[in-house]
């Protein structure tokens, strides 16, 4: 059995009457890039806080890098890096001083710290501006620096809470490339929360889907796609009315139905046929010009899961 970086059993956390995390049982192998997917308020940040030993579980247990989160939070925090909901950068300080502070916190020897700062900032294209106060930087640059910070001391485990949130698509793509490069070179376990499915698909070799504190599925992106996504069918044509969409959504074979850029997008359950649905569309007054079918994306799987869970 592969060595585990994280192991939780029935981990539960309630805030007054709200159950933020509900009986989470999870295993994250060491060295994996693990995507923790869920909509806002799903319990992703609470999970990270619990795993770092920042807050206590209401019930259940968790071991991170072999340490108990309830009693050995100090050990976990010493051996991991975390980019939480906010960048955590000191904006009055320079980029170099931000990294130097956290390098000193991690007790890195000065020579090694100097070398590592240069290596990371050069890799991220920030070296020339290392002396500037971070407050003067663009959001994309700040987020790059924020990602460099938890990787600085080469921890065995890195938590990244929505690292590309709020960035424009170009900056997010660039950051993803940097993150993939840094992760593969460093060989650390990465626990990444996101609601960006493309990001999860690109970076993660294992993903879990969570909604309202409950774990809905765990597996590799390919595994999840084949397990839950069914096929994605794109229909070009005209007259796709709201009433038609409502009828299609009620159909037993349809997981999702929506109109995007004038095209009808259907996510069908595994083994479902398209022909009966085309009949419904025509009967409802629609015109079908072209039908294309393919494997659903991770986003389709995610949305299907959210919809099915919501129906339940």
């Amino acid at each position: 059995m592969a060595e585990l970086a994280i192991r939780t059993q029935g981990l539960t956390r309630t805030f007054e009457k709200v159950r933020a995390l509900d009986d989470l049982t999870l295993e994250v192998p060491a060295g994996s890039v693990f995507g923790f997917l869920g909509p806002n308020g799903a319990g992703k940040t609470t999970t990270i806080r619990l795993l770092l030993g920042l807050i206590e579980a209401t019930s259940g247990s968790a071991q991170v890098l072999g340490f108990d989160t309830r009693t050995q939070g100090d050990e976990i925090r010493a051996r991991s890096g975390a980019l939480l909901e906010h960048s955590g950068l000191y904006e009055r300080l320079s980029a170099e001083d931000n990294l130097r502070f956290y390098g000193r916190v991690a007790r890195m020897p000065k020579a090694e710290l100097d070398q590592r700062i240069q290596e990371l900032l050069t890799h991220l294209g920030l070296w020339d501006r290392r002396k500037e106060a971070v407050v003067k930087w663009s959001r994309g640059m700040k987020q790059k620096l924020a990602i460099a910070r938890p990787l600085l001391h080469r921890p065995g485990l890195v938590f990244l809470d929505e690292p590309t949130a709020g960035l424009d698509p170009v900056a997010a793509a660039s950051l993803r490339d940097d993150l993939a490069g840094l992760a593969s070179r460093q060989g650390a376990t990465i626990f990444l929360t996101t609601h960006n499915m493309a990001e999860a698909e690109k970076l993660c070799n294992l993903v879990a889907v969570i909604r309202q504190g409950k774990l809905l599925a765990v597996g590799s992106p390919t595994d999840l796609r084949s397990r839950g996504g069914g096929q994605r069918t794109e229909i070009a044509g005209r007259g796709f009315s709201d009433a038609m969409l409502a009828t299609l959504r009620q159909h037993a074979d349809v997981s999702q139905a929506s109109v995007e850029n004038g095209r009808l997008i259907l996510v069908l359950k595994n083994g479902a046929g398209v022909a009966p649905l085309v009949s419904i569309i025509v009967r409802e007054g629609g015109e079908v010009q072209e039908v294309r079918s393919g494997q659903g994306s991770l986003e389709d799987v995610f949305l299907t899961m959210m919809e099915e869970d919501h129906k339940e």
Partner: protein
Amino acid sequence: MNADFITVLWKEWKEIVLERSSSGAGSYRPLILIAVLGVFVPFRMRPERFFSPEQLLLPVFLCAFVITAVIADSFAGERERHTLETLLASRLSDRAILFGKIAASLAYGWLISIAAIVVGAITVNVVNWNGQIAMYRDEASWLILLLGPPLLGGVVATAGVLVSLHAATVRQAQQTLAVGFMVLMLGGVFGSSALPAEWKVWFARMLLTWTMAGLVLAAAGVVLAIDLALLLAGMARFQRARLVLD
């Protein structure tokens, strides 16, 4: 613990200095305070008055005043700028964070009050030059000089950190501190005037039996006890889970 304490102190010091050097008129504030208390006030003063123990109360209160402005930012500022949770998610111990923040603000206030005293001493000597250097000569003055800023500054820093731990914003922390100190001062003034006359006489007679140095040491002992009580309260209030969820 020591290395972590120094690391937090280093970061806090940089932030305090950079905040004041990057905020326009704010960057001159410490210099203005030093100029007023170190040049303007001593300029017309005779050396015997300047080097009296009572006159030292001014720089001691300057230290407390400067710390009030800085300490409000300690935790409330981190919370406001969303850096607190990242700091708490590091391997730093609770004590290293707490003591590092208190020590940085204390050092800043102390440095400014010492600078005001040194500049003041130079000013008085230059203005009243008679071929001899005037200096503090009595024990009580040296005790106030050495113990006053750290002990009174310590009360402000530890009380300030307690307020800052609770406050949602820096402004809220500053306002709470200002109101708190005003209530304390007014309470002291009105409270002492409300005391029965025979108590006041007894107290005055008792004070007259003490030397000035003895009085300073007794006052220092009381202030030190308050320092320690506030520090213990701060340590008890510093709970990561509460700070993360606040």
